[in-house]
């Protein structure tokens, strides 16, 4: 399950809804990761562009990767503006056993940061400024500049 929301996520609602969805699926472990906008560098908030087709295929590939472990993944992300102390990202894993859940949430969140086609902007002084220094080139980037 991949959800995109306009603006901030309603964290309690999402955490409760996912928990209820899997209430009788016999998973022993549920680990959500909630990402919240921090006050730093004088920003008023963050803003996000999401490219949904590639995000969906990336997410589906992760689903296929963890299915043999008995795990399922869910994710919610914001589009547009999210202000200080609001949340923009929730990733969650359900699995029968805790080790799989703990290892999966770590690997999923790290790959999300490195690969998911989402772009972050600082909201500052009424402007929307690409967070270039905090962004990561996707694996394989630079292809167009190769010679030969």
């Amino acid at each position: 399950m991949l959800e995109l929301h306009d603006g901030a996520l309603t964290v309690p609602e999402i955490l409760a809804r996912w928990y209820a969805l899997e209430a009788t699926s016999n998973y022993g472990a549920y680990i959500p990761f909630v990402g919240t906008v921090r006050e730093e560098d004088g920003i008023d908030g963050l803003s996000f562009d999401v490219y949904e087709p590639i995000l969906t295929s990336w997410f589906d590939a992760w689903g296929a990767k963890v299915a043999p472990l008995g795990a399922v993944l869910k994710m919610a992300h914001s589009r547009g503006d999210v202000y200080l102390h609001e949340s923009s990202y929730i990733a969650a894993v359900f699995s029968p056993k805790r080790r799989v859940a703990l290892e999966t949430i770590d690997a999923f969140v790290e790959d999300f940061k490195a690969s998911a086609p989402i772009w972050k902007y600082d909201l500052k002084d009424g402007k929307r400024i690409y967070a270039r220094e905090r962004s990561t080139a996707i694996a394989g980037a630079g292809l167009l500049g190769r010679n030969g």
Partner: protein
Amino acid sequence: MITVEFLGPIQKPVLSMEASTLREVAEVLKQDPTMAEWIENCAVAVNDTLVGSLDTPLKEGDKVSLLPPVCGG
């Protein structure tokens, strides 16, 4: 004709051009001074699948997407 779209922070409208491989697209984009800051750090998708070779063939109607450095979360 194929189209080239620029995602996220690259402020550039969709391009249409004739090209039969990704290499031909790269040659065009490398001439564009507004692309200088993006050529070395963008990943490339053809029809929404990331590709790893300039020899990737393109056919009529294909969509090439440039994905600059990401930061979700």
